[in-house]
């Protein structure tokens, strides 16, 4: 374990504890005394499935390029986080299994194949995918800088969050291309550390609040009988 591992672990713990604190505040729902017309569970299911499709949201179908870029960007973020955690746990992650990796000698492997070609292709796939998602992040950033309405709405945190997440994805992609380089993984770990320390401070917190917002939305329309999975008109 290097100092970069420890810094990243500390940042992750800080981020997790902060998220947990907010999450706990969201559990107790205010009591609603009104008699239901529909079902909360049905509304929440609808809210988290069909209602998120581009066919149902103007924010998606009226702004399709931004919506698609946003979806790819978010998939890229989650993928990068998963890859980062795997690299933190398994020292030789994404290197092919050569038989030298023995448990107990301070190294560990995320063993999925000893086939060099397969591993190289897989790394290449992740590298290209993350490069594309990073580009989506750059596109969103450019839109924020140039679109009049969006600029008026944005604060420093909006820009910083976008920049940090995009850089994080870029470093993730670079590690996939050059896993043997001495600087790529430490750079990714530093970027991850910055990201996880920053996350609780600004809008990146929406990772927690998004879920709660979808629940609240579904509960509201579900209870009032507006949203239902059974409604054919939806």
């Amino acid at each position, binding site marked *: 374990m290097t100092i970069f591992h420890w810094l990243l672990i500390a940042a992750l713990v800080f981020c997790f504890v902060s998220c947990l604190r*907010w999450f706990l*505040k*969201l*559990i*107790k*729902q*205010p*009591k*609603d*005394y*009104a*008699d239901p*017309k*529909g079902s909360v569970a049905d509304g929440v299911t609808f*809210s988290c499935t069909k*209602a998120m499709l581009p066919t*149902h*949201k*103007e*924010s*998606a179908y*009226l*702004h399709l390029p*931004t*919506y698609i870029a*946003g979806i790819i960007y978010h998939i890229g973020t989650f993928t990068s986080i998963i890859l980062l955690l795997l690299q933190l746990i398994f020292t030789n992650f994404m290197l092919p299994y050569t038989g030298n990796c023995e448990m107990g000698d301070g190294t560990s492997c995320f063993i999925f194949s000893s086939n060099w070609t397969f591993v190289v292709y897989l790394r290449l796939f992740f590298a290209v995918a993350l490069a594309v998602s990073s580009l989506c992040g750059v596109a969103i950033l450019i839109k924020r800088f140039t*679109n*009049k*309405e*969006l600029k*008026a*709405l*944005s*604060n*420093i*945190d*909006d820009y*910083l969050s976008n920049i940090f997440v995009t850089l994080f994805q870029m470093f993730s992609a670079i590690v996939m291309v050059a896993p043997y380089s001495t600087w790529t993984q430490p750079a990714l770990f530093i970027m991850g550390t910055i990201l996880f320390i920053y996350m*609780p*401070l*600004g*809008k990146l*917190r*929406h990772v927690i*609040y*998004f879920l*709660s*917002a*979808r629940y*609240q*939305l579904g509960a*509201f*329309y579900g209870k*009032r*009988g*507006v949203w239902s999975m059974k409604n054919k*008109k939806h």
Partner: protein
Amino acid sequence: MQEDLTERKQKALDFLNSHLNAKLITALNSCVHCGLCGTSCQYYIALKEEKYMPAAKVDLVAGIYRRYHTFAGKVFPKLTGTHELDDETIDKMVDTLFGACTMCGRCVAHCSVGVDIPFVVRTGRMMLQQMGLVPKSIQSTVDAALNTGNNMAISKQDFIDTITWLNDDLQYEVNDDNATIPLNQSGVKMLYTVNPREPKFFPLSISAIAKVFYLAKESWTLSTDYYDITNYAYFVGDEEGARVITERLVNEAIKYGADTIILGECGHGSRAMRWEGPNWMKEKYPVKTITAVELLAQYIRDGRIKPDKTKITDLVTIHDPCNLVRNGGVIEEQRYIVNACCSNFVEMNPNREDNFCCGGGGGQLAMSEYNERRMKIGKIKADQIRATGAKIVVTPCHNCVDQLNSINLEYKLGVTIKTIAEIVADAL
């Protein structure tokens, strides 16, 4: 004076602090500033200014929250774009939260995240109410309701005179000298409520519902003390006032032995009474509530009234009131009724829970300060109506009727606006 304002600001901040439950915390933290909600809001569509974007309205309140309730906001206020609760912020809040939002909720389902935007707007209005900064015109409407029992300050005698005159009219209409509009009758099944605009300006809509009740042999009464279904205290963020108005109607139903309150054709009144009222009273009602639309649909389904759809041959469309439809779940009933009463029906586009507000909701009709804006955003509805080619627009809300009448004149639509009860009565 300065000290007084400082105290009032503190009161508003304390109010925000005391209302931070899971729902509000979520709404104040979840906007990601993607800016994709502008195209769902009539104000932004019609007026094309950034301050009218739903997210900009949310940000006014969320920025205050971030300033006083988050670590980053307290230590690095610029970083997350926080707002001090100062005069500049307050002016913006009054102008956009009161003057540029009908609290229609159209933006909510279309938001990328699902932020409850009108809920945040209402929270901002509540903070302004704590500071005594509610626009005068709508505050006087609330005061009238609290002081006289109805928002138009109609005297009891005037109300009785109107109903007596309508009673004669009903007897003539149904050709029965025993037909009556019951006032303060005990032992009835239902208490009917009206929008005070009806006795004041649209008495024929009371005649219409009375005719339907007569033919359906309903057991009902009007109360001469408390009959007002509207609740503008809800829109100004005065929870205590809203509770008082709600409780009066519940008590009135109990007084006359009615087990059900019929929520007259008023979108926000129905919403306030049906969905918000129990929470203001912090208990389940001892009586049931049903909207007039649901009741009339039930009459037709049960065969208690038999409309003749050949009587109305003009092309008819429906305007869906936001508070009744998107925020109240009464969606298909009005379609069922109109299809049973009219031979030619066409949907507006978009419709149902996706419909655009008429522009008069959220108390806009009661805020003369913003009349010009109200008429400008009404163009969206005018265009929607014109595109249908309809001659009659039916809407189960008297506020919407008023706004639709205004845009009918302003945009020269040449349509007739009717309530659901009126269209049913016409078909009987």
